[in-house]
């Protein structure tokens, strides 16, 4: 019976792929018109894929599905109560900075392992996201998540990524570094989520120290809400972090739009960090991304970013351009080749960095 269900899921995935073939990351959600939790165990996206997400990743995303004769991988470790997954990214990259020697290197960007224990199937789960390389083991997420019977509400408690706008793969995007809310800065706290119909909303209360020691009684409040239509989505995000050194506030608007084979992502945000000395904490960051699905398994990602690092002072703006070609020839394997160009004030060489990279991304 289970094999039959999985088979049906795979067929459904293939049909969906034939209609709307796609590749990876948040734009997938836009291309498929789905919420993040359709493909990820974490309702806010990233990390371990759901059974649906696993099947989709094997049957729809790659240019070719290698038929091994076995049922698709669903992450189950011999029992429906325990599931696992992982991601590995290995790069060959060259970095150029004016007036500096260029750096070429192989780099294991990260290897992550995910583990989910469905203590009460569909209602209560324990989840771990562990970065196992490079370097020693580093816990990213570890939480317990409880769904109501209707699956409209959930409560999550533990260490988690905070909800704020688009959860992009590129952690160095301006919109992620400006807020400081990304997948390198999980925090400990509690998150309440609402997933009903087209609504997708979260409210989190956390320490606000991004994994560091607690220095005060101040807390960080994160609010994220989006309306998800099959062809577009629009969301608002707000964050306030009250620390002893001063409060940091961020507000953002984000959205997605599917136009034929092109998925558009956009986010704009302003931050006001009063913990930064000399009043330099007022920033503005924007992102515009187009993902063009040239053919099944072939995606061209173009990103244009803008950063005003100090809204109180003119002439310091920075831009960042990225062109990334993503090829997913078969299930579980993706090749990415890209170029990122930074531009900024003439007197700072580091703001004129050029990055060329080829990345092998394995996932399961």
């Amino acid at each position, binding site marked *: 019976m289970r094999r039959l269900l999985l088979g049906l899921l795979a067929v459904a995935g293939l049909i969906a792929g034939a209609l709307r073939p796609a590749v990876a990351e948040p734009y997938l959600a836009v291309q498929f018109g789905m919420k993040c939790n359709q493909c990820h165990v974490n309702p806010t996206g990233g990390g371990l894929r759901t059974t649906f997400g696993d099947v989709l990743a094997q049957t729809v995303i790659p240019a070719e599905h290698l038929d091994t004769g076995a049922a698709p991988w669903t992450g189950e470790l011999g029992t429906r109560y325990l599931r696992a997954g992982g991601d590995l990214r290995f790069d060959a990259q060259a*970095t150029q*900075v004016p007036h*500096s*020697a260029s*750096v070429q*290197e192989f780099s294991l*960007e990260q290897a992550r392992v995910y583990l989910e224990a469905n203590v009460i199937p569909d209602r209560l789960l324990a989840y771990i996201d562990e970065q196992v390389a*490079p*370097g*020693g083991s580093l816990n990213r997420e570890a939480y317990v998540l409880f769904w109501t019977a209707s699956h409209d509400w959930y409560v999550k408690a533990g260490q988690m990524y905070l909800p704020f706008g688009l959860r992009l793969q590129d952690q*160095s995007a301006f919109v992620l*570094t400006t807020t*400081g*809310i990304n997948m*390198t*800065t999980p*925090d400990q706290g509690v998150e309440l989520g609402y997933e009903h119909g087209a609504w997708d909303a979260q409210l989190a209360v956390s320490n*606000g*120290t*991004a994994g*560091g*020691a607690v*220095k005060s009684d*101040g807390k*960080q409040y994160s609010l994220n809400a989006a309306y998800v239509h099959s062809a577009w989505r629009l969301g608002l995000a707000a964050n306030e972090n*009250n*620390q*002893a*050194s*001063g409060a*940091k506030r961020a507000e953002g608007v984000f959205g997605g739009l599917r*136009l*034929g*084979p*092109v998925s558009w992502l956009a986010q704009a945000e302003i931050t006001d960090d009063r*913990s930064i*000395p*000399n009043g*330099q904490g007022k920033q503005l960051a924007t992102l*515009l991304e*187009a993902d063009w699905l040239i053919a099944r398994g072939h995606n061209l990602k*173009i990103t*244009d970013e*803008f950063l005003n*690092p*100090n809204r109180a*002072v*003119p*002439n*310091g*703006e920075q*831009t960042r351009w990225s062109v990334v070609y993503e090829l997913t020839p078969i299930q579980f394997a993706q090749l990415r080749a890209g170029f990122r160009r930074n531009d*900024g*004030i*003439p*007197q*700072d*060489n*580091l*703001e004129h960095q050029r990055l060329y990279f080829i990345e092998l991304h394995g996932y399961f």
Partner: protein
Amino acid sequence: MPIDRRFGFAFSVAVLLAACAGNGEGLDQNGNPIGSGGSGGSGGSGSGAVTADLQSIEEHVFTPICSKCHIGGSAPEGLELDADHAYQDLVGVPSSEQPSVLRVKPGDPDLSYMVQKIEGAPGIVGSQMPLGEAPLPAATIAAIRQWVANGAPNVSTGAVMSQVFELRSTSPARGATVAPPVRQIVIAFTHEFDATLVNDTTVWLERAASPDATRPASAEDAGADEPVQRIAVSLMLNRHNPATLIVRPLEPLAPGRYRLRLRGSGGAALADLGASTLQGDRTIVFTVGAP
């Protein structure tokens, strides 16, 4: 209009609408208003080489690179690296990733977690820093190591150079009795010395030739009038730490009492890069015990 041309048109419009990078007018090297006294100050990431002092490291590394992320109340791992917080968050503070290791252990770059992170050393937790960017240049890392080796002072180069050039410590330490074999002696100065002045007339090793040469040495025991045997050594610079000198005997030291001599007086005496000599000659006596 075909969909791909529509895409090209739309993206072109988006590009035209996108803002350009700033011209930097009125800003210093780190994008702060000139004269604002901002965290970047003058000198910034684009000018000159980084030197082994906190101010230079802040201007070239912490402010333009690290504080893109490590700033504000929600800085990763609670580590803020803007000029107002870098020193207090780094020096003598346990790492949150490896609490048994200090982020910066003054005098010991090898056991400073920040150094390990920027070098991508084995055993670190998580990724090499700076995250998602090329590793720092070797010269920059060397300067940071040197700052740590110098004791991680919260002062600029000028202030460091004004410090008295002096012997900080040796290993084996003065008066110590150590077990054989002893293959090297490490001499640490307060800051970088002038390597051109290191030779067998300024640094040498002697072994006491008296019958009771294995008796423990005292810190005061210089044994000035004792017959001695000069030991053949090679003098090696430490590429990771220009404030330390390694004295390596050609043969492991046999049991006995030894005197390490440093000449800080007379012509071409040991001195730092500012030509400040040691405050006189130094003798360090130690004993190599029986196996």
